């Protein structure tokens, strides 16, 4: 029997029982659509989150004072000596490298902001002009912290939009004075109301020059130093450079921890990838269920078509041919159902993309391939039993019935 004839015969047989065929196609296509759609959504969520992180700057290196590992029993930890503070001079030293694009020192604390009897406790961030670019923040009004030497403690501040609202209401805030922890300072800008940064709602914080913050908190240390590398490739070299530079300044002691945005991103990426796989696996179960349905319906169909199968044997069909005929019928179902499912899945992901435009729900190529392969595989495996039963059919008994 020629392959083309086998396909034509199978299609004819499928076409002769429309309801049965439609039901099996439905089961198959729902399975494939589920795989495509769920992996699409999972992958879309992963890309979305990765993208959100990337907008914070993947080139970002964060320097934190103190070593993260406690197992390292240096004499310093034995006698309970705290690590040396990070200072503005450390930050300035780090900046002197061709690998560095921007550096922003950072100090964080909480202070009372007072204006004409209105009082409110707010997080106050001390940093420099480059903080704006590093964290992709935007200004709504006025200007950001001035670009000048970090050790000038100029008493100015930039307010988050919500803080400005609460202290000034609808009155103009730019140029007005507020009191921060007992010091007066002038409002020079207001941040645009969007985004979070370092876990702070930018709407609810106040930014001041780093030296002013050090004065407010009465410290010479820094909470951390934010370093933006020139590019992603040189990030490892940058880390080494920072470590060496600070160690040199801290009498050979490596007493800082360096984390990269990149490593956090990689962890998230890994978690979301495995979640997507899990969801795809669950969807694949529905494909197997579809396969079992195909098996049941085919067993019924073999029982109904006993005479036809017996006839084919009497007319010179071999067992193998009978097997091939029925298996290819199931495979045809899988292919058609799979293609319908792909269309359904892509239509669904398109629909979701219309409702959530920020989510790219296009399923990855491997998911499409895996869904089709599972559909074909279940079609093949679950048709073997009914096809085998048909092939062993006794033609005399099959033809004796009318």
């Amino acid at each position, binding site marked *: 029997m020629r392959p083309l004839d086998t396909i034509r015969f199978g299609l004819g047989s499928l076409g002769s029982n429309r309801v049965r065929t439609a039901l099996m196609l439905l089961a198959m296509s729902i399975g494939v659509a589920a795989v495509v759609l769920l992996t699409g959504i999972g992958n879309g969520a992963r890309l979305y989150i990765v993208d959100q992180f990337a907008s914070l700057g993947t080139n970002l290196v964060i320097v934190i004072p103190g070593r993260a590992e406690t197992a390292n029993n240096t004499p310093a930890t034995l006698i309970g000596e705290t690590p040396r503070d990070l200072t503005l001079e450390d930050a300035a030293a780090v900046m002197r490298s061709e690998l560095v694009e921007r550096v922003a020192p950072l100090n964080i604390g909480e202070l009372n902001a007072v204006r004409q009897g209105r009082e409110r406790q707010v997080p106050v961030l001390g940093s420099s002009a480059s903080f704006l670019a590093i964290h992709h923040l935007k200004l709504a009004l006025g200007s950001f912290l001035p670009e000048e030497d970090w050790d000038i403690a100029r008493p100015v501040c930039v307010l988050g939009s919500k803080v400005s609202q609460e202290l000034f209401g609808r009155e103009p805030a730019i140029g007005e004075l507020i009191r921060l922890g007992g010091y007066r300072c002038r409002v020079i800008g207001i941040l645009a109301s969007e985004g979070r940064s370092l876990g702070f709602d930018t709407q609810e914080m106040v930014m001041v020059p780093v030296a002013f913050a050090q004065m407010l908190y009465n410290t010479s240390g820094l909470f951390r130093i934010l370093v933006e590398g020139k590019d992603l490739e040189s990030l490892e070299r940058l880390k080494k450079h920072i470590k060496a530079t600070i160690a040199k300044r801290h009498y050979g002691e490596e007493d800082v921890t360096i984390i990269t945005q990149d490593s956090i991103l990689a962890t998230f990426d890994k978690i979301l990838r495995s979640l997507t796989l899990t969801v795809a696996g669950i969807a694949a179960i529905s494909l197997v269920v579809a396969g079992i349905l195909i098996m049941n319906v085919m067993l019924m169909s073999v029982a109904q078509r006993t005479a036809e199968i017996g006839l084919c044997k009497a007319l010179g069909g*071999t067992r193998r041919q009978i097997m091939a005929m029925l298996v290819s019928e199931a495979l045809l179902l899988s292919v058609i159902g799979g293609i319908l499912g792909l269309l359904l899945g892509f239509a669904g992901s398109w629909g979701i993309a219309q409702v959530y435009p920020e989510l790219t729900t296009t399923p990855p190529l491997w998911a499409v391939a895996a869904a089709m392969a599972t559909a074909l595989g279940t079609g093949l495996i679950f048709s073997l039993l009914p096809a085998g039963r048909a092939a062993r059919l006794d033609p*005399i008994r099959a*033809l004796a019935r009318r």
Partner: protein
Amino acid sequence: MIELSDICRTFTVGGQEVRAMDHVSLTIGAGEYLSIMGPSGSGKSTLLNIIGLLDTPNSGTYLLDGRDVTSLADEQLAATRSRKIGFIFQFFHLIPRLSAAQNIELPLMLAGVPLRQRRQRSAVLIDSFGLGNRRHHRPDELSGGQRQRVAIARAVINQPAVLLADEPTGNLDRSSGAEIIDLLEGLNRAGQTLVIVTHDPEIGERARRRVRVVDGRLASDSGG
């Protein structure tokens, strides 16, 4: 051409052994017209099934065209059936979803003959069997006589060595039954070996050679 010698076939029905064929020997030559008659349950269908290679005997030998076909494997059995045997059944056994032409071409399709050749060979038969305008009709659009003619065309399209008909008129009215017998006898006159199983004496008597089967044995044989 067909040489059955000492054929036995037993079935187990409800734990009891039933002898359907009891040491049957029968030789059928090329071009013969033979009828097998007998009461129902006598074993005439079993004999036909053994000749048609649908059933294998428990003992004895079967030579078809000089070749021992008693114990062939499935593949070879199917191939031999395809080339040497044509079946005609009481209930026609046409595939309902296929047209008359497609039903006739079924043995060629199973044998892997290309579509164009199949079309040519079925067209010749359709015309000579008077089914010209019924080519694309499905079985349920054909009369009983037309259905059986389609079935006969299907049986002879592979030019088999022997044509086996099991009650070919059993499901037809008198006049279309007579037409079918005429058609079969016409084929026989053209050299086709023909074996008809029937319990209708009127049809059985027409054959040149008549074999009677009773209780799995040959009770009488008019010639050969």
